[in-house]
């Protein structure tokens, strides 16, 4: 009742691990792949990158704010790390890439023979020259997607930012470039100040908000993209309970990604799967039948 096929990837359920959460080591990816329908690794770029100084994540009543700054061991070391996934991973592996030009993006894909698909990070809100910096320009997005598609036969997903005037415009550009699916959304720009020390809490001053706070924003992006695009939409942003999953699917998501909710429970994938099984049993419909259902009638 939970199985989905996403751009040819056979998934045991529509729940994917979002990029950047527990995705730096193959050991945690393998562990999470036992219950998740697919896992997305931490975004990787051509060169090793330190990221920002601690504190890089703060939690508050409604979610998290992070400015990790795309820390990464670089493409070679990370490809070596992920190699073990081939033997021990229990669901498809998506490798997330960041870069500042289309050539650089395309140069990354051959390093990852173990990847089942690629996700392009066109949306990280707190790093210079990459992420959102390249993902806010429709022309550039189209060019990047087209170039990456030429470099690989595997499905390519474009991960979009909600910090733009019109997410559909960027989604359309990715579609024109030949993208296989869009992922919406990355974090929403935000910050937090400590009133005793009177200083911003993050070393980078501001960062990206994730978790429950951004769910309505992400849901609206998924709704709009589903209406205007032909490619599948993967929903992400604030999903914490099984009801959130159903909401995103009704809005048009074929699959969903979960990140910040791992802060509440390491067993989140297991418990969501169990709840969704009970839900589909009670309605008698499989989840794929519900995709976009809120748009009709």
């Amino acid at each position, binding site marked *: 009742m939970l199985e989905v096929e996403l751009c040819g990837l056979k998934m045991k359920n529509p729940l994917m691990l979002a990029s950047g959460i527990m995705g*730096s*080591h193959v050991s945690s990816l393998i562990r999470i792949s036992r219950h998740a329908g697919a896992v997305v690794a931490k975004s990787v770029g051509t060169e090793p990158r330190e990221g920002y100084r*601690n504190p890089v994540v703060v939690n508050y009543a409604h979610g*998290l704010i*992070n400015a990790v700054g795309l820390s990464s061991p670089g493409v070679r070391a990370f490809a070596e790390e992920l190699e073990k996934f081939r033997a021990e991973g229990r669901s498809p592996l998506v490798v997330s890439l960041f870069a500042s030009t289309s050539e650089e993006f395309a140069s990354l894909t051959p390093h990852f023979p173990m990847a089942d698909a690629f996700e392009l990070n066109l949306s990280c809100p707190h790093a210079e020259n990459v992420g959102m910096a390249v993902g806010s320009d429709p022309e550039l997005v189209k060019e990047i997607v087209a170039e990456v598609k030429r470099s690989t036969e595997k499905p390519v997903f474009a991960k979009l930012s909600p910090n733009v005037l019109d997410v559909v415009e960027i989604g359309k550009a990715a579609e024109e470039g030949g993208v296989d699916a869009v992922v919406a959304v990355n974090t929403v720009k935000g910050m937090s100040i400590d009133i005793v020390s009177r200083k911003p809490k993050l*070393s980078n001053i501001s960062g990206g908000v994730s978790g429950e706070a951004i769910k309505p924003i992400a849901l609206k992006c998924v709704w709009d993209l589903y209406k205007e695009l032909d490619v599948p939409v993967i929903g992400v942003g604030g999903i914490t309970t099984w009801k959130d999953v159903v909401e995103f699917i009704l809005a048009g998501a074929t699959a969903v990604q979960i*990140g*910040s909710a791992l802060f509440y429970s*390491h067993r989140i994938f297991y418990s969501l799967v169990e709840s969704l099984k009970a839900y589909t049993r009670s309605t008698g419909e499989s989840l794929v039948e519900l995709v976009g259902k809120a748009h009709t009638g």
Partner: protein
Amino acid sequence: MYCVRVEKVVKHSKDVATIVFDGILPSYPGQFVMLNLFGYEEIPLSLSSPRSVTVKAVGETTRALVDISPGALVGIKGPMGNPFTPAEGKALLVAGGIGIAPLLYLHDYLIAEGVEVHVFYGARNADEIVCLERLKSYEVATDDGSAGFHGNVVELAATKDLSSYRKIYACGPEPMLKALYKLLNERELLNRAEFSLERYMKCGIGVCGSCVLENGLRVCVEGPVFSAAKLEW
């Protein structure tokens, strides 16, 4: 994150100090905090009592913290992580270097619970042995023989009968913990042991994944205290 004020700084040596806060952090021994030293970094530190951390200067942030002045504000996230589980009867604590920090808290806690506690405490040399006055019953080991047993703390433990201890708690550098694991495994005592582990941490709250072990578990959430038998070393 919230702020606490530093009430007192107790220098144990040039490089090691206990930073005492102006209030109690509700916690259990073995838990840690992410301490943000403004202008420097946020780093993980075990509590050495409900209101203190004991820190060794190994880099920029820890150096500045050891030299901090009373009255300064520091940011705190936590206490977090899984604590040590309590013991009955006799307990052994095995500390390597600054690994003594969480065990100081555990020591006082167990004694208040009426547990009979003995400590094996190893360090490179006599200067690096700190806070002995807080310990009731202990034996010291130094690599250079400048105090106590000449050798490392696991070699000291190997000379003893350990079978009467109902619980064995350890914290220290990973090579030391691995050697202790081997010793306890040989003596079939592994299921009585709990180890506090360290990994490079960024978020401290279970999302970034920088602290995961070879078995996929996070030191910041599933640890830092692990039952030794589950470590698959």
